[in-house]
């Protein structure tokens, strides 16, 4: 080691020490900045909850608002006619409408999506699988407004020609389009879950003499069950909250009936259609935020539930 003259040592060390201190402060500052970025996600979620519930609060607390729109009124009035001499805020037609569309959508998307996922992971030759994946990616990339456009302009006429339903825009039309929207989610998550089942499961089953389909149905599918359930639940959450497709394709008539070929009005479409025309702070405004709160809470719980399923799948496969 070369000896450094004593006179020049302290300034160099002092400068080095200062530089080190500056770096340390910079590091600390940057760490805090990054922490802030991470908590923006938490803050975002909290703010959404806070502000949606805040604007909906007058329904539960303000006397003036409750004269026109109250919790009791939501479930006692059979009609949804918020504009008129006597505004009526009955939630029943909206809830029934949402339920009908979601049921039709799940009724199509879950069987087709799960079966297609089984095909892709168990039966399909590799070339076909390579074709299927981009097709699903394309479907996933189609914006919901385009699906709604297609349902409104093209599919509604086809469905009416085939079924002869009196209403061109109805729950069935919107449900099919919605099924197209949630299909990629159901397919992708189910397929990932099926692929994640260890090969040993399948090989053991086949070795015991089961056919490929018996293996798929009795061994692989149950093993992937939690993942498939998660995919279905995520699709459900998306179906409940989807707006543009139902806004364009469902007819938007607040009818309470069991016929899926009747027009329906969903919670999300009501918010989208009526929000522009409300005066800030009016009972109608608070009611629409209340509907938003219902949507938020419902999808929140479905998503949390789905998350639990994914955890269970991970634990089960890791332990197996």
């Amino acid at each position: 080691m070369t000896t450094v003259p004593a006179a020049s040592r302290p300034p160099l060390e002092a400068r080095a020490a200062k530089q080190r201190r500056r770096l340390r402060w910079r590091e600390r500052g940057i760490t805090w900045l990054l922490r802030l970025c991470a908590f923006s996600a938490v803050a975002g979620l909290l703010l959404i909850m806070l502000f949606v519930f805040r604007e909906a609060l007058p329904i539960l607390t303000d006397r003036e608002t409750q004269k026109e729109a109250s919790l009791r009124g939501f479930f006692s009035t059979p009609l949804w006619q918020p504009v008129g001499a006597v505004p009526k805020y009955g939630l029943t037609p909206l809830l029934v409408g949402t339920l009908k569309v979601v049921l039709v959508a799940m009724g199509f998307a879950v069987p087709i999506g799960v079966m297609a996922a089984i095909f892709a992971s168990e039966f399909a030759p590799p070339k076909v699988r390579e074709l299927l994946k981009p097709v699903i990616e394309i479907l996933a990339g189609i914006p919901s407004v385009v699906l709604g456009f297609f349902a409104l302009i093209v599919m509604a006429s086809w469905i009416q020609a085939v079924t002869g339903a009196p209403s061109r825009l109805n729950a069935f039309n919107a449900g099919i389009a919605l099924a197209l929207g949630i299909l990629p989610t159901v397919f992708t998550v189910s397929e990932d879950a099926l692929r994640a089942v260890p090969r040993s499961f399948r090989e053991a089953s086949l070795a015991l003499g089961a056919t490929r389909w018996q293996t798929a149905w009795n061994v692989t599918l149950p093993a992937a069950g939690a993942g498939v359930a998660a995919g279905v639940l995520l699709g459900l959450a998306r179906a409940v909250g989807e707006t543009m497709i139902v806004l364009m394709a469902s007819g938007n008539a607040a009818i309470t009936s069991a016929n899926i070929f009747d027009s329906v009005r969903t919670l999300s479409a009501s918010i989208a259609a009526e929000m522009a025309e409300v005066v800030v702070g009016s009972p109608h405004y608070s009611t629409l935020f209340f509907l938003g709160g219902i949507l938020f809470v419902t999808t929140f719980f479905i998503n949390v539930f789905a998350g639990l399923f994914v955890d269970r799948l991970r634990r089960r496969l890791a332990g197996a």
Partner: protein
Amino acid sequence: MTSSTLPAALRRLPKAKPFDWGGRIFSGLTGVAALLVVLMVVVIMGNIIFFGWRTVTWEFLTAMPREGMTAGGIFPAIFGTCALVILMVVALVPFGVGAAIYLHEYARPDAWYTRAVRFSVNNLAGVPSIVFGLFGLGFFIQFVGRNLDRALGLDVVWGQPALMWAALTLALLNLPVVIVTAEEALRTVPREMREASLALGATHWQTIWSVLLPQALPGIMTGAILSVSRGAGEVAPILFTGAAYFLPYLPQLPTDQFMELGYHIFVLATQSPDVEATKPILYGTVLVLLLLTLLLNLTAILLRSRMRARLAGRTS
């Protein structure tokens, strides 16, 4: 007694196997399901391309609309969509990448705050897009905008639907996508790189900035591109936070309203004054939006597969 010791005649007998009805039907059904999906996609894309390709000319993409949207082009919608998405990315990527860096590099995996962030990211992804629209209205426009106006002594400038609020709303909507893909990207950088950099005396942040981030760039871009694709396609969050139908000018300030491709499709399809006359324009706009989102998704997928191949190549 092995098969080689069986009499030759017995060996030649065909194995008695009943026709596997259940199996054939089942696997057939799964194939039909897959076929159905492919068919529907082909039908939708085919219909849109067939009715829309004639409208999409250079003039269509660069001219302003004329005569009540029955003629001319959709340039303001394209411009508005681009302006919206650029603002969104500028707001989104720093926060998203910062959060991903924090989660990957700094946070303890099982600490309560780490779990809170991951929980929020997962559930933010599941919030319906119309609720984001309500949030944009209730928080950005009514709360932040109105208070900003009051603080600056203005009448109504920030407290109304504007490009900036729509962009911020979309940024929050796409935050989970960017965080998840950026974290995935950071995970592909090998430990040795980080350890080498730290061993050479670099600080944690110097390592991240100079070594990890450049390596993770393809993955981060994947997230950004995916968020752009979603931002261009989502209409519900911008319905009442800034989109408009007939604007004779292009948005120049963040407080301006803007035309947007998805919103334009929605209004043309449902509220057009002359459905037949605007159908060509409608189909053309749909085709443009579809091509835009598909191109973006394709780029993101290519980037992602290249990234995954790099990771696979290294670990194998």
